[in-house]
């Protein structure tokens, strides 16, 4: 069962793309995702994929070419980071509104400025309401697995939305770890062939795409897009079930770590969850009922499920690797707390902003967060819900 390998996160993403064998890949170099198109163009040069690789002159053109290719009737993929995603921003919205199931590897990095090439989640947070399905990955294995599941979710007739698989720049993209790959033929069978209903290259049914959509129509079209995002929840769960059958690896909307009897918990995404798990183990050894929720499916946001998972805690900290600069707290914090409010779960909650611009996140930092939560759990008091950890002030 499976092929044991040692790969970096970027290599894992490139291998997944090779096994998916998309018709078109259009990409532009940007640290730390550059390696993905590098590895992939080697596959193209050596004839191990059928893909046309379009070495575009910018990320805006990368996404434009992906939109063109997907609308044409082919499978299109790309990879980017930070400013690359910012430069795509206009086309990110257009891709989802045209209902094109493009799949992207987003290797998370701080968005300028000032310039910083290291990891945080400000790039992803900038497109969180753009109509893309967003899956986050703790390590290379999850980045790979999420990509293998991506097309089945995105191309589902009830969904037809683009999807991005996020992983942490450098921390996982450039770290070599053990990984279990799936055999090529199994991936091919699992992913299946792309059969779009309508596409530009069908000469028997010419079609026009991307109209001027005025007051009498745009609202309904946007509603359909929102409905597709709501539909995606079930499809993501179904695909995860099939994936578990094939690999034995189980994926949910989020991972609950020692949450059964937890009194305090942290919610976070991507690689920080790995560090947080060791802290939870540490605290558990000391008799502290600590737990962790690692969000995998950030869009669509699993509101009810998250609220239920956190509803019995005495205190919760939501950790954001991007500051929202809104005077209110991080983006994940806002989503989690509003989900809890709507689902009538009253738990003292705080926002922790951390790790900006690649600032190291140590187990001591996470301990600090749990210590504060213990204090909140004991006293019920929160002196300031908008907090930072690892910041020099």
């Amino acid at each position: 069962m499976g092929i044991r390998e040692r790969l970096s996160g970027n290599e894992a993403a490139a291998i997944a793309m090779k096994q998916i064998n998309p018709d078109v890949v259009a990409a532009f170099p940007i640290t730390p995702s550059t390696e993905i198109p590098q590895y992939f163009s080697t596959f193209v040069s050596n004839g191990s994929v059928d893909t046309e690789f379009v070495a575009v002159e910018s990320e805006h053109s990368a996404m434009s070419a992906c939109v063109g290719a997907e609308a044409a009737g082919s499978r299109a993929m790309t990879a980017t980071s930070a400013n690359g995603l910012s430069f795509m921003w206009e086309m990110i919205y257009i891709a989802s509104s045209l209902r094109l199931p493009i799949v992207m590897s987003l290797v998370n990095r701080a968005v300028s400025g000032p310039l910083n090439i290291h990891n945080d989640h400000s790039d992803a947070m900038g497109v969180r309401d753009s109509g893309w399905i967003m899956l986050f990955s703790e390590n290379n294995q999850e980045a790979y697995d999420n990509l293998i599941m991506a097309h089945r979710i995105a191309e589902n007739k009830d969904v037809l939305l683009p999807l991005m698989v996020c992983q942490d720049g450098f921390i996982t993209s450039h770290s070599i770890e053990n990984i279990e790959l799936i055999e090529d033929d199994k991936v091919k069978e699992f992913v299946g062939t792309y059969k779009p209903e309508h596409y530009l290259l069908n000469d028997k049914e010419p079609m026009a795409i991307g109209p001027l959509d005025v007051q009498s129509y745009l609202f309904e079209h946007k509603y359909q897009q929102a409905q597709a995002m709501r539909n995606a929840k079930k499809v993501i769960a179904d695909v995860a079930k099939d994936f578990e059958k094939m690999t034995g690896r189980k994926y949910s909307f989020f991972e609950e770590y020692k949450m059964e009897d937890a009194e305090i918990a942290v919610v976070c995404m991507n690689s920080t969850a790995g560090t947080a798990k060791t802290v939870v183990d540490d605290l558990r050894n000391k008799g502290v009922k600590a737990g962790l929720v690692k969000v995998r499916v950030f869009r669509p946001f699993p509101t009810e499920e998250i609220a239920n998972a956190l509803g019995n805690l005495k205190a919760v900290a939501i950790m954001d690797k991007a500051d929202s600069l809104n005077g209110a707290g991080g983006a994940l914090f806002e989503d989690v707390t509003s989900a809890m409010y709507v689902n009538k779960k009253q738990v003292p909650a705080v926002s922790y902003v951390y790790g900006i611009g690649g600032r190291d996140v140590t187990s001591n930092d996470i301990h600090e967060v749990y210590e504060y939560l213990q204090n909140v759990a004991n006293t019920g008091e929160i002196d300031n819900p908008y907090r930072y950890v690892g910041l020099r002030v």
Partner: protein
Amino acid sequence: MPYNLKEVIANKPSRFTSGHRMCAGCGAPPVARMILRALKPEDHAVIANATGCMEVSTFMYPYTSWTDSYIHTAFENAASTLSGVEAAYKSMKKQGKLPDDKHTKFIAFGGDGGTYDIGIQALSGAMERGHDMVYVCYDNGAYMNTGIQRSSATPKFADTTTSPAGSVIPGKMQSRKDLTEIMEAHHLPYVAQSIAFANFKDLYEKAEKAIYTEGPCFLNVLAPCPRGWGYPTDMLMQINKLAVDTCYWPLYEIIDGKYVINYKPAKKLPVEEFLRPQKRFKHMFKPGNEWMIEEFQKEVDKRWDDLLKLEEMTNK
């Protein structure tokens, strides 16, 4: 097939249908219609369109004027969007995912704003990558869709809403970018400048060459705008004729680097003949502003002379 307008129209029905919302007297629709007529009837086409007058007036949901497949995404990226479609075609064809016996051609349309300015990067990139497509710029010399703002294609002294002819600054103070030459610097197999003129022969033949020359080809077509230029709507074809007879807009093509001037007026008219019917140049005819017409004429002469030299040089 030797060109005969009546035969072309009889044998090749328009692939760009009526009912669109382009203005009366606009130069762009006849250009689009004639270029598409150059397609072989058995060929399928995918048209990409930059945001602009042409796009908003021809594809307002749920109606379209385009009988071929058509895609619009944004303002600056008709070239890169179409490059993705073309890459998909190549890939799918190679993999046997599309019928063997059917050919698809790729044509992009963009105005001067979407081509000379905001879209030049995507255009340059797509052309350099060698996609098998034709990019057509319909150049009306300003951002007409947003209300006549100056672009880098706007001629010197033109009165636009962002280069208004005022009491201190008499219109646009910079001369027009020469995009056709910039595209030639990409060493494309076929680059041409055309206009709807004299039974559309020049435009039709250039479109046919561009569409059926393998590789990236570029057409720059002057397409007057009655709103932005300020001429009576029934004067479109006369304005076009004046643009070529004054050598303001020379008709030429560059085939693998060789320049061919397709029309050399027997009597080159003074450029003021072209300028006078247009309200955007009205201030140039006020007493005391003669220097503006002189300067304009000098620029036209210089560019025409340069072109004659290029033709001579590349045909030695």
